């Protein structure tokens, strides 16, 4: 119990609650099912991408190419299926784009493993490459031409609520995908040698190799999964917004990484959790939406988020600095 209360996830959860309560007191409209569902819906795609980012961060790497992979896989899938005259639902979209995502991840892992390059550096080029590929080879314009099966997807809800302002809204069905993915990634991280290998690599890569972890295979799997998750996020986002965008998520790479880090993942590797990642994304969403409820005009929002972020990263850094002093007293604890 004490462990739970001390955990980073719990702290984020508390902050999330406090912010929500403060906003709710100022504007009771915030406490409504429709707001909650709205926030959940806005978080789903970022959570899904964030879980891919989480795995990479835990392994001690930083990858910023996942946004481009999301754009390339979803847009290519859409254009391909459109060209083939596909009229069904989201199922085939997901299957095709996941295949693209896995391939893109595997190719990146191949480059990283074969030529012994840092993932961060490769991902710089990889992001440019895939956005460029999308725009040049696939298409430049947003495409609003959805197959029949996908037309109503944006308003397919598990629970419907009527809202005086927003009209009919609800808990979107794609939350099911998130749940399945979150449980799957949680299981991977906790109960498989692959998942433990990610933590091991992030803790100390050299030691992980000595201990017999196959770090190259882990890298292949990690980047393939991350690519697949980006692909799923891309397709769901397309279905939400009823359009497929060749520059989807461009410029949002760092926002997703920030959310995952706020959720407790260490940018230096070895630490991070599924629950934390989801809370981190939710926190950013609540903050963004909450400001509207507080009557903060749209222009001020970015600045406020910036300030909150600064506070958020400063507090643990200052705390760590204090603890850093204590590093000199390793024996102090003993007796």
């Amino acid at each position, binding site marked *: 119990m004490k462990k739970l209360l001390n955990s980073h996830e719990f702290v984020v959860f508390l902050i999330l609650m406090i912010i929500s309560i403060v906003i709710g007191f100022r504007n009771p409209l915030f406490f409504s099912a429709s707001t909650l569902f709205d926030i959940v819906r806005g978080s789903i795609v970022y959570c899904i991408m964030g879980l891919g980012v989480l795995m990479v961060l835990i392994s001690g790497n930083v990858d910023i190419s996942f946004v481009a992979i999301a754009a390339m896989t979803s847009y290519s899938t859409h254009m391909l299926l459109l060209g083939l005259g596909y009229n069904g639902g989201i199922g085939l979209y997901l299957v095709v784009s996941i295949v693209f995502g896995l391939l893109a991840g595997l190719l990146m892992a191949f*480059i990283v493993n074969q030529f012994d*390059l840092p993932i961060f*550096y490769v991902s710089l080029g990889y992001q*440019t*490459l895939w956005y460029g590929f999308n725009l040049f080879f696939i298409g430049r314009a947003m495409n609003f031409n959805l197959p029949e099966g996908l037309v109503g997807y944006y308003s397919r809800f598990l629970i419907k609520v009527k809202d005086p302002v927003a009209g009919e809204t609800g808990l979107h069905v794609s939350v099911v995908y998130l749940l399945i993915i979150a449980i799957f990634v949680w299981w991977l991280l906790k109960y498989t040698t692959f998942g433990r290998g990610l933590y091991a690599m992030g803790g100390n890569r050299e030691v992980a190799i000595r201990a017999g972890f196959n770090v190259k295979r882990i890298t292949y799997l990690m980047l393939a999964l991350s690519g697949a998750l980006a692909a799923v996020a891309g397709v769901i986002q397309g279905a939400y917004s009823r359009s497929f965008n060749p520059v989807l998520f461009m410029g949002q790479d760092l926002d997703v990484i920030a959310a995952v880090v706020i959720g407790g993942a260490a940018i230096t590797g070895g630490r991070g959790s599924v629950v934390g990642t989801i809370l981190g994304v939710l926190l950013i969403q609540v903050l963004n939406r909450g400001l509207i409820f507080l009557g903060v005009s749209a*222009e001020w929002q970015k600045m406020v988020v910036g300030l909150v972020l*600064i506070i958020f990263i400063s507090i643990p850094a*200052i705390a760590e600095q204090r603890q850093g002093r204590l590093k000199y007293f390793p024996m102090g604890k003993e007796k």
Partner: protein
Amino acid sequence: MAEQKRGKFPGGFRFNIEDRVLLLSVVLIILVIFFGAIEDRFLTGSSIRSMAFQCPEIGLMGLGMAIAMMIDGINLSINDTANLSALIAGLSIVKLAPFFAGHEFLSIVIVFLVAIATGAACGALNGLLAGYIGAPPILATLATLTLYRGISVVITGGKTLTGFPKELSIIGHQVVMGIPIPFVIFLIVGILMYFVLEYTTFGFKVRMSGTNPTAAKFSGIDNRSIAMKVYILSGILGAIAGIIVMSRTNSVAYEYGTRTYILLTLLISVLGGTSPGFGNVVGVILATFILQVLSTGFHMLLLGVRGSSFFKDFSWGVLFIAILIIDHFMRREKSI
């Protein structure tokens, strides 16, 4: 025997600088010959001049990124620093215009001073967070990126700022002895940076602090003050880039370059051979040229092809990874 300590970011990974400069020079020459051979308009005066007008802004930001990466940091806020600096400078010039009637030239000096002061202040906040408070630089500058962009939005209300005195556009449009002024600024700043990094105690301490901050601390180097100075310098480089953009486009927008410039500056910096403790101004400048040549070259070559301007992104990504791979083999060659 000793285990290589992995840097916090982006990892204990170093390039051989001399090799890198050589490799980049060869790539640049090959690209110039390639485009020159198949495209008549490429090696003309006007095309070269337009390239020289375009590349300095990204090159200056690339230098600002590189110096942050030399101390194992990163400056993700550099593009927004540039925009905010230009914005505040632009606003002050618009507001102060009545006082400077007849002294427009003086107003340009004011623009420079205000922009540089703003850039330095932005850098100082980064330095405070990353240097003194000890937040991971990638997060610190990500937070300030959001903050600076937010401030820009608040100031402009999200609109683009225009209506500057004519004199301001001189910087972005005139040439000195046939060389575009932005390019002159870029070269002067480049030479200054080269000198500072290679020949001064500050540059020396930057490299030592970047290589091993603990050993630097035990050798009497104040890492935090070094980080502070580095981020301030980085902010100033951003501010200069911001002035050039403002002058070239006769406008300031809070979102100028926000979607692609951070990535480009990172690419230029890494391609130029920057790694913690090591970095080379020449490499960064060559990388900037390569980017510009690719961009202009493919633009001319594919004129009329659908989406032609995006082919450069694709090729830039491929070339970047290709150079990393070539570098891998060069490193391996050395170690056998």
